């Protein structure tokens, strides 16, 4: 009796919402094909996958690929390269949008502000291929940087062939591309700080610098914490699409990260199963980190990342 009623109610729901179901159908299929089917494909990490035999006929090897992974001498290198690029990127790159936003906030000339803001966001919209092409030209033997070095009496340096320069080049490029756009979110937060606070501080005789320390920065604190958490949550992800454009075998020592290795070993050298084991390691740890970051953020201010 109850079963029947439930069924009837369900049928009614489907009937009244038939258009909603219909709308969602293509979306559902798309996610199945392009997101969940690949997730199913993760099982090749437990196989000796053979592209001719396919998933269903390849040999199963259990955890063998993972065992190789954790004893692979490249593994620690990939791990530390991934972490170091992100950590140095955060140390040098994270404060800059905040500083820029505070600077913009002090500008009263509307036209100047608008033009300079427009300029500062621009690099964010330029493609990685173009940006990295420019970088390669600028740091090349006959490039701009070496021209300056030569003028200062130094020998030319072949920057992209020497491992120790890679991190600096990559992180500087990221900063160049992201600082202006990154400032937008802090400027929005600054706009939310009430002007009354500043007026009260003025009456109390506070200078600009004190106001920045005691009003502006505390006002930005929640946004800063959230942005920091988002960044920490994705600490195992580096823009591999950008690294691939820049690196070469001579600098794998510092430039090779999980994703670039997976790309090279898996897709170029066709060690599908082994590369997939590495990918699973990275995705799983990454998932836990993002999950934790989201959880902490939710605790802190009652909103979620997603």
């Amino acid at each position: 009796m109850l079963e029947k009623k439930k069924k009837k109610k369900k049928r009614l729901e489907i009937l009244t919402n038939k258009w909603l179901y219909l709308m969602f159908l293509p979306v559902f299929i798309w996610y199945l094909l392009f997101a969940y089917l690949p997730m199913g494909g993760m099982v090749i990490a437990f196989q000796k996958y053979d592209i001719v035999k396919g998933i269903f006929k390849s040999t199963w090897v259990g955890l063998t690929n993972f065992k190789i992974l954790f004893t692979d001498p490249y593994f620690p290198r990939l791990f530390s390269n991934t972490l170091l690029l992100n950590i140095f990127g955060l140390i040098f790159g994270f404060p800059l949008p905040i500083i820029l936003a505070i600077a913009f906030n002090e500008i009263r000339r509307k036209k100047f502000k608008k033009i300079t803001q427009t300029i500062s966001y621009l690099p964010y919209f330029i493609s990685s291929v173009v940006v990295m092409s420019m970088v390669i030209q600028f740091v090349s033997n006959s490039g701009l940087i070496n021209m300056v070095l030569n003028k200062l009496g130094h020998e030319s340096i072949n920057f992209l062939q020497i491992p120790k320069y890679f991190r600096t080049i990559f992180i500087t490029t990221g900063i160049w591309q992201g600082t202006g756009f990154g400032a937008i979110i802090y400027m929005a937060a600054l706009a939310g700080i009430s002007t009354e606070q500043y007026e009260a501080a003025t009456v109390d005789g506070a200078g600009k610098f004190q106001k920045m320390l005691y009003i502006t920065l505390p006002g930005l604190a929640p946004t800063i914490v959230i942005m920091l958490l988002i960044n920490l949550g994705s600490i195992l992800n580096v823009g591999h699409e950008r690294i691939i454009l820049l690196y070469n075998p001579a600098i794998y020592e510092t430039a090779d990260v999980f994703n670039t290795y997976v790309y090279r070993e898996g897709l170029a050298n066709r060690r599908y199963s082994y590369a997939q084991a590495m990918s699973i390691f990275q995705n799983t740890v990454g998932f836990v980190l993002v999950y934790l970051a989201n959880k902490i953020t939710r605790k802190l201010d009652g909103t979620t990342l997603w």
Partner: protein
Amino acid sequence: MKQKMGFSEVVFVSICYIIIIFVCVVTLYPFIYLISASFSSATSVMKNEVVLFPKEFTTKAYRVVMEYKGIWLSYLNTLFYTFFGTLLSLALTILAAYPLSKERWAPRKAMSLFIVFTMWFGGGMIPFYLVMRGLNLLDSRLGILLYPAISAFYVIIFRTHFQSLPASLEESAKLEGANDAQILMRIIIPLSKPIMAAVALYYAVGRWNSYFWEMLLLSSNKKFPVQVLLQRIIISSQLGQDIAKALTRGEASIPTTIKFAAIVITTVPIILIYPFLQKYFVNGALVGSVKE
């Protein structure tokens, strides 16, 4: 009441101006150099004589690049992928978000998780490639349109926006006998134009700039978008016969000025359109941050 600024105030504001001007100079200089060098003679670029303005002004590099038909073909491809890709993305994103915004829709919670989970976790590069291969979407224009069609992030932005619209709109339309599809098309979408513009722009920029999967999935030159062609010309030394023949002009490698001209030609549309659309970009960035 306007107060006169004290000495420390003047110093503080001046520092702000200096920071901003510094950022702008550093941002713009590479572009200026690039453009100047691309209009300079090959020898003056080689000898590093170009600093700010073109030396020995010439449009030779541009003539060489423009005579190469491949670049125009790749341009058309990029326009195709960007235009139809953005349309497809926008349509699917709205179709995803609208049902998710309706409390009365029973699978709402489950389907939200179904979509949001993909932001946290993915199968990885290799299974994705194998799926594309299995679906027969290698070296296919359709494949390029489809593979990045929906971004969960923008679905959530649209869902939040739809939820913020007053329910009374829907109720009165329902009384007149309109169904959900009609309500979406005639009432909801006209009210969502600003957010559609912002999201469409981000999708379009993403399409315009995308190279990685295009590089992996496409194998015939005639389907390459401009970014992949540029990557071939400048970064990877594996030039196809036709590219080499058209651009090296008998030299051992492609001259720097020609590379610069190719970069400029592929980037100019973005730089020209961008200032006019900048307002929407900023709106879009903030729409996203509401949820962050």
